């Protein structure tokens, strides 16, 4: 038993499973074992009910409506923003911009802030473990503006190799880094990276899509400039996410999209943008989804993010132990072994069996795992693998789910045995 394993796991998974209607159903006549929360999480009844109630009782367009249900809709929409702001410890609620997802949040920064502030030759520093969402917007910018992209490589134990960080940051305008890898599970310590970036004069964007659902995130403690995350990975609905950014940056940034809501004044000659956060929220927003986002934050807050993290450390350790004990050298795990620096995403490769075939066979047992490149093709290239299978754990998973995975993998191994 390592020290990590003695962490007091206060999460009552049996009770939590009961909160998620989808987990009660059977698939192929078997108990659904959902191990793909790094792709999207399941939704508790509290979130489904909040959205349903919104549509049944207070559906109306937000802002400007004077009638009662329009005020209630606006109240629901804006109070959810406050919940999200408190959840990540924003300085003020207006620093939370609603977007569709983390991808849109990063694109918003690339299109608005970066195009206003970066010039040809300006360096942007990324890492080899980034999701395409934090790669392609910068490659688009590089093609359009000629900014230079630099990469922080990985160490042998799947962490960021910071040996040449100072050189990479020299002259850089932006460091864009994931707080937790969706493939490796690696948790990157943001504060020292932000300190180094700021010392070099660079801004810091954090892709917190995997971190916010699984760790207590404090954007002020990180001292980041931009933080992107999605509701659907943290028990909330699809179609909504958040960009947190420093108020002064948001105030100075040009609007991203034009239309209703984002204006203060429009004349035949032009427009004056609205104040933040609405400056960046053109068009009718995802109102029910915002309400669901708020309910998801309430749900996680009630569990306590320290407890969520402790549960995942315990369960990830259990799953890693079982996989190693059962499959030994036949199975390669791509991610740190140290539970203190990794989350609940476990990517692996079986000797001689392709990830898709593994995924297909375990689906027979109603086990949901993901196979492929996980939207991180540059990382796959660095790892030298075409695809991995990924099992990822969340609050509603327990040791029985990990056991079910190991048993199903055993079946797959027999099925494809050479």
């Amino acid at each position, binding site marked *: 038993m390592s020290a990590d394993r003695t962490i007091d796991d206060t999460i009552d998974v049996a009770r939590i499973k009961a909160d998620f209607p989808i987990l009660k159903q059977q698939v192929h006549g078997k108990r659904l074992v959902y191990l793909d929360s790094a792709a999207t999480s399941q939704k508790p009844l509290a979130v489904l009910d909040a959205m349903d109630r919104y549509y049944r009782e207070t559906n109306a367009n937000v802002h400007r409506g004077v009638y009662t249900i329009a005020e209630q809709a606006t109240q629901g929409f804006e109070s959810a923003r406050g919940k999200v702001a408190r959840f990540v410890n924003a300085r003020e609620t207006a620093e939370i911009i609603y977007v569709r997802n983390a991808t849109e949040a990063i694109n918003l920064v690339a299109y608005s802030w970066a195009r206003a502030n970066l010039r040809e030759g300006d360096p942007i520093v990324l890492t080899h473990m980034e999701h395409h969402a934090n790669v392609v917007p910068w490659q688009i910018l590089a093609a359009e503006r000629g900014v230079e992209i630099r990469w922080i490589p990985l160490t042998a134990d799947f962490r960021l190799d910071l040996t040449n960080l100072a050189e990479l940051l020299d002259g850089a305008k932006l460091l864009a880094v994931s707080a937790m890898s969706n493939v490796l599970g690696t948790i990157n310590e943001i504060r020292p990276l932000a300190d180094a970036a700021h010392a070099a004069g660079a801004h810091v964007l954090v892709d917190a899509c995997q971190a916010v659902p699984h760790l207590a995130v404090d954007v002020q403690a990180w001292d980041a400039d931009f933080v992107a995350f999605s509701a659907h990975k943290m028990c909330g609905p699809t179609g909504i996410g958040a960009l947190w950014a420093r108020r002064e940056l948001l105030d100075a940034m040009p609007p991203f999209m034009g239309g209703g809501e984002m204006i203060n004044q429009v004349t035949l000659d032009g427009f004056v943008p609205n104040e933040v956060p609405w400056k960046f929220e053109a068009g009718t927003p995802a109102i029910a989804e915002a309400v669901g986002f708020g309910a998801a934050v309430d749900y996680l807050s009630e569990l306590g993010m320290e407890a969520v993290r402790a549960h995942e450390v315990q369960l990830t350790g259990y799953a890693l132990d079982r996989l190693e004990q059962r499959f030994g050298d036949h199975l390669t795990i791509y991610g740190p072994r140290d539970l203190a620096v990794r989350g609940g995403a476990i990517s692996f490769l079986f000797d001689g069996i*392709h990830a*898709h075939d593994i995924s*297909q066979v375990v689906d*027979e047992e109603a086990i949901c795992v993901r196979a*492929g*490149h996980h939207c991180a093709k540059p990382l796959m290239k660095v790892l030298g693998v075409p695809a991995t299978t990924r099992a990822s754990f969340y609050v509603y998973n327990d040791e029985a789910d990990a056991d079910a995975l190991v048993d199903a993998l055993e079946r797959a191994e027999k099925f494809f045995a050479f």
Partner: protein
Amino acid sequence: MPGLEDLYREIILDHYRAPRNRGELPVPPAHKVEGFNPLCGDEVVLYLVVDGDTVTDLKISGQGCSISQASTSMMSAAVKGKSVAEARRLIRAFKALMSIHESKLEGEADGDALAADLEGVRLGDLEALQGVVKFPVRIKCATLAWNTLQQGLDEVESS
């Protein structure tokens, strides 16, 4: 619901474990063509030797799931030694087996035309891959080799 045995027929696993015509050929005279499935990272590499109107030699390499690699192996065995016209008919027949039709079939006339075109085409072992149709996400795995072959034949003919 379809079971695993519908997808992973023994002949498929046999081709996966012991792929036929695996290797490389010098380029030229061979023509090299690569196909990728961006969804799952499957990769198929074909080395084609077309002499006159005959595919006289064919080697395969690449990596991927059992379905993509078995389909590539079975394709190589089916196409080697055949005329380019026959190879193209096999491509059409295989895609029809996968419920993929090159042109929109509006009305029975086109369906009849396809049926007439494919009449007498013997898929043999390839029919074992029909079970893939019940697993829609895997159809791209099965067709990768055939799309790559089509691309290769087009490139050879246009050069």
